[in-house]
């Protein structure tokens, strides 16, 4: 590969452009207001939120990989957090077993959703939308019935404080300690990134999910059990949504009905900015993390500037539209290049 092609390939990679944009904006906001560089008040919480939203982005990515949407990611997260919270409150489970209960709950919800989509042949958009409503009612009902006016499970399992407040700084090897800005919450997010990335890049399961998303009929005619793959994609989506829900509950310090209510838009922003196709067949796992961080830097940066919530939402919407049209333009150039070749 000639150096020129290599440079062209690097510059043409959406992830590189996104990273540069994220870092650039970060520096810009920092220069306008040095408070933005504060480790404890800005960067640490930013990364901690980024960890949670990356995982919810991955949950959406799994549904997108087969060309579906999961509009119930937020509510699946809420139910999973509810299950984990209840297990801490009533059965006094330790942190990890409670987390596992949450994850299993999410995976089951996802599997049921996938099964309904396959059996009813109704569009995933409708099924997950209906699921979202049903779960919203369910979650509110449970919290109100069991905890009354508090509407929250407040029992904190041992170790929760550690996950929400500490950083790699406490781990030292030969006198060198980890960075203070690195929240422990990033650890599960990174594990999820690695596992999901590995699955889509290297494994048969990942390949078959993408094939199903790329061309359902061709996948079916090639002997891929497409129904099972659809259920699998939604199961994974539910599982990851559950992880994000429990992570958010840990961050907040309590298990409430509002968990996940803010998940829907970010769950799309991360993957789509990162280059995952809405129509299925191609995913960008690392891009999901970068895309999520970009939106957070913009949100946080603008709010440090003292810009109101409404303006903030306008800005985020514009960023999404711009990124999408950039992707389209890039695609246009690629196809022109291809045409020149043949």
């Amino acid at each position, binding site marked *: 590969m000639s150096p020129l092609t290599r440079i062209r390939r690097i510059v043409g990679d959406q992830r590189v452009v996104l990273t540069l944009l994220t870092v650039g904006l970060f520096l810009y906001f920092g220069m306008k207001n040095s408070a933005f560089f504060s480790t404890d008040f800005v960067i640490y919480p930013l990364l901690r939120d980024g960890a949670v939203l990356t995982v919810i982005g991955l949950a959406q990515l799994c549904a997108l990989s087969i060309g579906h949407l999961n509009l119930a990611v937020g509510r699946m997260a809420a139910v999973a957090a509810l299950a984990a919270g209840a297990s801490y409150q009533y059965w006094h489970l330790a942190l990890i077993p409670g987390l596992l209960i949450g994850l299993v709950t999410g995976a089951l919800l996802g599997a049921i959703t996938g099964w309904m989509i396959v059996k009813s042949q109704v569009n995933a958009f409708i099924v997950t939308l209906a699921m979202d409503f049903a779960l919203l009612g369910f979650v509110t009902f449970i919290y109100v019935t069991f905890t009354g006016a508090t509407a929250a499970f407040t029992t904190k399992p041992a170790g929760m404080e550690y996950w929400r407040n500490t950083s790699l700084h406490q781990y030292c090897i030969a006198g060198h300690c980890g960075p203070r800005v690195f929240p422990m919450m990033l650890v599960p997010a990174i594990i999820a990134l690695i596992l999901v990335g590995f699955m889509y890049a290297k494994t048969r399961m990942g390949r078959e999910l993408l094939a199903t998303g790329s061309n359902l009929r061709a996948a079916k005619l090639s002997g891929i*059990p497409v129904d099972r793959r659809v259920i699998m994609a939604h199961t994974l989506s539910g599982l990851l949504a559950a992880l994000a829900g429990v992570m958010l509950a840990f961050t907040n310090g309590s298990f409430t009905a509002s968990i996940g209510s803010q998940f829907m838009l970010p769950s799309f922003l991360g993957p789509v900015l990162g280059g995952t196709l809405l129509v299925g067949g191609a995913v960008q796992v690392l891009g999901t993390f970068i895309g999520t961080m970009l939106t957070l830097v913009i949100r946080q940066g603008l709010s440090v500037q003292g810009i109101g919530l409404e303006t903030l939402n306008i800005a985020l919407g514009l960023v999404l539209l711009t990124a999408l049209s950039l992707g389209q333009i890039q695609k246009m150039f690629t196809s022109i290049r291809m045409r020149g*070749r043949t």
Partner: protein
Amino acid sequence: MNTELRIEKVSKSFPGVKALNEVNLTMKGGSVHALLGENGAGKSTLIKIITGVYRADSGVLKTNGEEKFFNSPVEATDAGIAVVHQERNLIPEFSVEENITLHHPPTKFGIVDRAERTRLARQALETLGFDIDLNERVKNLSVAQMQLVEIAKALVTNAQIILLDEPTASITSGETIKLFDVIKRLKESGTAVLFVSHKLEEVYEICDTVTVLRDGESILESKPLSEYKQGEIVDAMVGRHLADRKVELRKVNRSVEPVMQLTDIHTALGHEKISMSLYPGEVLGMYGLVGAGRSELARSVLGLHGISSGELKLNGQVVEIKSLRDALHKHRIGYVTENRKEEGLFLDFPVRKNISVTILSKILKKLGVISFQEEDSVSTKYVDRLGIKVVDNNQLAGTLSGGNQQKVSVSKWLAADTKILIIDEPTVGVDVRTKASFHELIVELANEGLSIILISSDLAEMISLADRILVMRDYQLVGDLDNSKDYTTMSRGIMTAIHSA
């Protein structure tokens, strides 16, 4: 002034294929012009250029003397050109009435005038002499009825130039007679009609002049039809290159156990009493008109639709195939679909991944991880073997030419080591040279012992490739012919089977 449409030296290329090469055609008001040619000769491409769907690379289109290519079908409609496409362009959820008046719904103050719309639609249908409920949704109609709605839609625009692309392919002979009456009336009123058909008898009955296309070139250009005998027209369509090509008779041993045997198969789709045998190393042809139920039979047998009664034997054993997955992994049967873009390929996947999709279970390392090394070597092997033209096996399948895409689509089944391969319309939209190499490949594979069922609507292809030809009509087998590979006798035999029964 008399209506006239003139095409001069029109050329059009698609990636890897020269679809039209300096084609000329002149059609005049008050006459019916036949446009003939084999599948893939360029007829549909030419029609799409006239109607502004495609843009010609070069040449001239003159409508009533005005030199201009249309940029869109709407422009062509506005210029008085109506077209009945081979693939129907109706909106299934709309009513018959709405579809007929789709292009120019009559309006009053910008609001659709329903009474006028009903009147127009009824008038068009009455002209055709057909009785269909105007409020019925088009999706509930039969294929023949849809075809009639499509024709009514062309009539209602009062077009001066009407292009009919195989209008009789899916309607009954009674309906055809009515259609011909309409065409005659249109002709008398000074309309220019272009008539595309594969049925030569019809052409002779209704047409005045003829243009024959072969491999994108106009072999006969706007000649009076009466000056040519049917045989001469066929020669012009088929060309000497096919007659000259050496076709060898292959020896198939039919004294052994058939690899696949159907006995009295009925399906939910309407197949009746289908019995047939496929022997090892045989190329078994299935001919029939579009809609005869050949692909549907293949799909039913492979478990996509299922069979309702009858017996399916593979190598002498009675089996039940529940899904294509079953067919592939348990019984080693592959199915090369006719719609390679919609069903055969993952267009945004590289060639490598398209070929390996059937063998993922065989190239795994631990933990379900795909061995990229094996994937690479298998795909490279078939790219080389089938001569697929790629930069490397990471090139996206969507960027390949039609013929190369088809080869990729076949490769994935060869890679899976199938024993029986059902190949459905393999060379539609593929240029002549690729077609020839594809034919060689099929024979080569059969010689190596692969048993092949070849579904094709291309008569010449069928006769030069198949060892035996089954003829299907209306979901029934109506003929079983040993192929002598002599075009004249075989084509006559096949046509007799289709039209007598």
